[in-house]
């Protein structure tokens, strides 16, 4: 297919017409959270009900990706009004169809947050939960059908790729990404433009682009939701990256625990190939790019880039010392670009709206938006996307609706097993890379676990240490033995048998493991311990016997 034929598909004939064919849309959230609370039954029942009433030519029922407020699910969103119904079960379906579609008035009792807000909003976008958010990476997530490329095309899909192919040189693309000041969303926050430029500069006939979807932090589900909700966005980001760095082969590495994400990205690849958006001589140009999916077998360490590369090569997933970095010698020794799912999902808006536009969102050093997975003792847990620099207080209280049962906030854990705990006195910290590091935590991939007074911080540290101990690959001594020793010492303190000497040993080991480990897993494993020691030292000391 050439460029003109694609334009025809997008504009005149199929995509937009199909997308706008229906006056009403009922979107049923089929993110993993809603599915586990029964969304699939709701979807089936809703489709039956629409058929029984003979509305199938007026109303489209769409199974969408995640809408956000996961613990209020299953969710149904009515478009064009953006009315969201929460905690829907099969017995509500008849009433919703009758009232929303026939009588044209929403059911107040079923509206989103109807049970916790004095007056719920008919247009959910007015609710503070959504008002404080800014959806860029998740823009189309929750109202397009992730299994139909036409839906994506009708929402400006692959326009950025088209622009890049026909109007920009690889240098232009890299300059645009650099100008956006986008930083890697996988955790470390390395400037994306710089990474692309490094790979671009290495001369090689064969280069690779890898999308890291091995999201392994307990409590994190950002990448899964992006892949499930809008797989084409990630794919388009990869295509743009491949064009910029000069790669002709890509891999999406997804953990095996995400079957729905795997299914959807595989389908997306198939659809894109069919339209000639992947393959040889894409849209008649001399650019060729192909993508394959690789499935991880459930090792946390395979999220580390060199271990991930080893895993794609079919080897044991263990990291290698860097340098050499993958940009120089990555997959099968070739220059390789690895970015996280969320990073790739942020590329398209940067190209469409320009780097300058993106760089003005967020804070000067951390531009753009970040997706967080809110979990723990919070009223509205789920998936949110906020501009960088939003304070923790805004996230926990304005968006998250405060602590469950009116309890008191104690700490927020960010960055999963590589991150740390932020205590109540730092509730006004701006959520950006530097501010979190200065508090001994990290942004990480975006897991955010809120804890109330019932949480024991020593036990929190012990839990994360146990996770790292189990997930250590066992290659280097500090991580293999050090995490085991630290875990045992923490367990001893949890059992009220710890001594001041144990605490000293623990602190010494923490610094040793942090500085000596081979890869990021070991180097960040002591973070939860060090940050709880820093902010909640009294809890350790109270449990120690002389």
């Amino acid at each position, binding site marked *: 297919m050439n460029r003109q034929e694609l334009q025809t598909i997008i504009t005149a004939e199929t995509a937009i017409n199909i997308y706008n064919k229906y006056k009403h849309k009922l979107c049923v959230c089929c993110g993993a959270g809603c599915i586990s609370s029964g969304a699939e039954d709701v979807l089936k029942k809703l489709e039956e009900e629409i058929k029984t009433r003979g509305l199938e030519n007026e109303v489209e029922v769409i199974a969408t990706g995640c809408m956000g407020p996961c613990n209020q699910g299953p969710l149904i969103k009515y478009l064009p009004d953006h009315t969201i119904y929460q905690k829907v079960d099969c017995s509500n379906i008849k009433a919703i169809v009758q009232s929303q579609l026939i009588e044209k008035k929403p059911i107040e009792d079923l509206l989103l947050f109807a049970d916790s807000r004095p007056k719920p909003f008919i247009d959910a976008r007015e609710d503070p939960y959504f008002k404080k958010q800014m959806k860029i990476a998740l823009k189309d997530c929750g109202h397009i059908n992730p299994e139909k490329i036409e839906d994506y095309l009708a929402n400006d899909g692959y326009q950025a790729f088209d622009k890049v192919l026909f109007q920009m040189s690889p240098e232009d693309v890299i300059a645009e990404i650099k100008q956006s000041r986008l930083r890697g969303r996988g955790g470390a926050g390395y400037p994306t433009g710089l990474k692309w430029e490094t790979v671009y500069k290495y001369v090689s006939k064969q280069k690779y682009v890898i999308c890291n979807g091995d999201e392994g932090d307990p409590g994190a589900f950002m990448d899964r939701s992006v892949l499930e909700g809008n797989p084409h966005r990630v794919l388009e980001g990869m295509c743009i990256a491949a064009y910029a760095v000069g790669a002709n082969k890509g891999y999406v590495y997804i953990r095996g625990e995400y079957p729905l994400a795997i299914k959807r990205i595989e389908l997306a690849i198939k659809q894109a190939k069919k339209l000639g958006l992947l393959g040889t001589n894409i849209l008649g140009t001399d650019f060729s790019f192909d993508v394959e999916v690789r499935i991880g077998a459930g090792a946390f360490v395979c999220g580390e880039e060199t271990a991930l590369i080893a895993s794609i090569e079919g080897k*044991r997933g263990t990291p290698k*010392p860097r340098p050499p970095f993958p940009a120089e010698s990555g997959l099968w020794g070739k220059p390789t670009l690895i970015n996280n799912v969320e990073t790739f999902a942020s590329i398209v808006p940067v190209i469409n709206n320009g780097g300058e536009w993106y760089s003005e969102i967020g804070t000067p050093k951390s531009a753009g938006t970040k997706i967080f997975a809110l979990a723990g003792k919070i009223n509205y847990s789920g998936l949110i996307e906020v501009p960088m620099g939003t304070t923790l207080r805004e996230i926990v209280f304005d968006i998250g609706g405060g602590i469950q049962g009116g309890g008191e906030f104690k700490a927020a854990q960010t960055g999963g097993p590589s991150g740390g705990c932020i205590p109540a006195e730092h509730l006004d910290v701006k959520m950006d890379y530097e501010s979190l590091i200065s508090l001994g935590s990290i942004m990480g991939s975006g897991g955010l676990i809120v804890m109330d007074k019932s949480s024991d911080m020593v036990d929190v540290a012990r839990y994360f240490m146990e996770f790292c101990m189990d997930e*250590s690959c*066992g290659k280097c*001594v500090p991580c*293999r*033995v050090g995490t085991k*020793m630290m875990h045992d010492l923490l367990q001893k303190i949890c059992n009220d048998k710890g001594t001041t000497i144990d605490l000293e040993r623990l602190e010494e080991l923490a610094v*040793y493991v942090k500085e*000596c480990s081979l890869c990021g897993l070991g180097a960040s494993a002591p973070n939860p311990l060090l940050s709880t020691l820093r902010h909640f030292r009294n809890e350790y000391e109270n449990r120690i016997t002389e």
Partner: protein
Amino acid sequence: MPKIAVTIDDKKLDVDAGKTILEICRENGIEILTMCHLKGLTDVGACRLCLVEIEGINKLLSACTTKIAANMVIKTQTEKIKRYQNITCELFYAERNHVCSVCVANGKCDLQKLGYKTEMDHIRYPYLFPQCNVDTSHAWYVLDHNRCIMCTRCVRVCAEVEGAHNWNVMNRGNKVRIISDFDTPWGESETCTSCGKCVHACPTGAIWPKAIVQGQLEKKPEMITELIEKRKMNL
């Protein structure tokens, strides 16, 4: 080979470009402790004993895997590095069941030598005492997991020099074990050629020939290095 200027432990040196920091140090008589390194085999940077400080780089890098670069200022003997080497050594001893007095490698063991070099007088961490098997199924050799430090020198020598790929690593974290084939007894291995290279590559008393008793073990890892270098010359 072009020469570059570097500074190691305050000494200014003109050295060959393209070599690793470890190679350069050894050539210039600067001692660097290692356990997983065996000259000629691919370096993996696993034991973390050879970590060095490099000016301008905010983390410690393993000398065996880092290529030397012009104007590098390297420190190999700082207080911090010595402290970390001591901890690594103690963790080796605490991890498995290293009882020198009844070990075939007593007096000939690299781990034992490491203990002397780091002047270890006691171990501050609790011994883990894991349950480890001893595989005596092979006709000539023994694999004793109690003494294994997971340096993977046997894995690499078997794959890279002998080409048999008998050895591999199973499990993860502190449950890692060296395995023969797909975790079959060594004596039943379909790939082992009984060449004995792993016996000489092993730095401790983990792999040894049956014909000897306590303290008699002679290992010649330099033989492997020589073999690799001679093969390169033939090519």
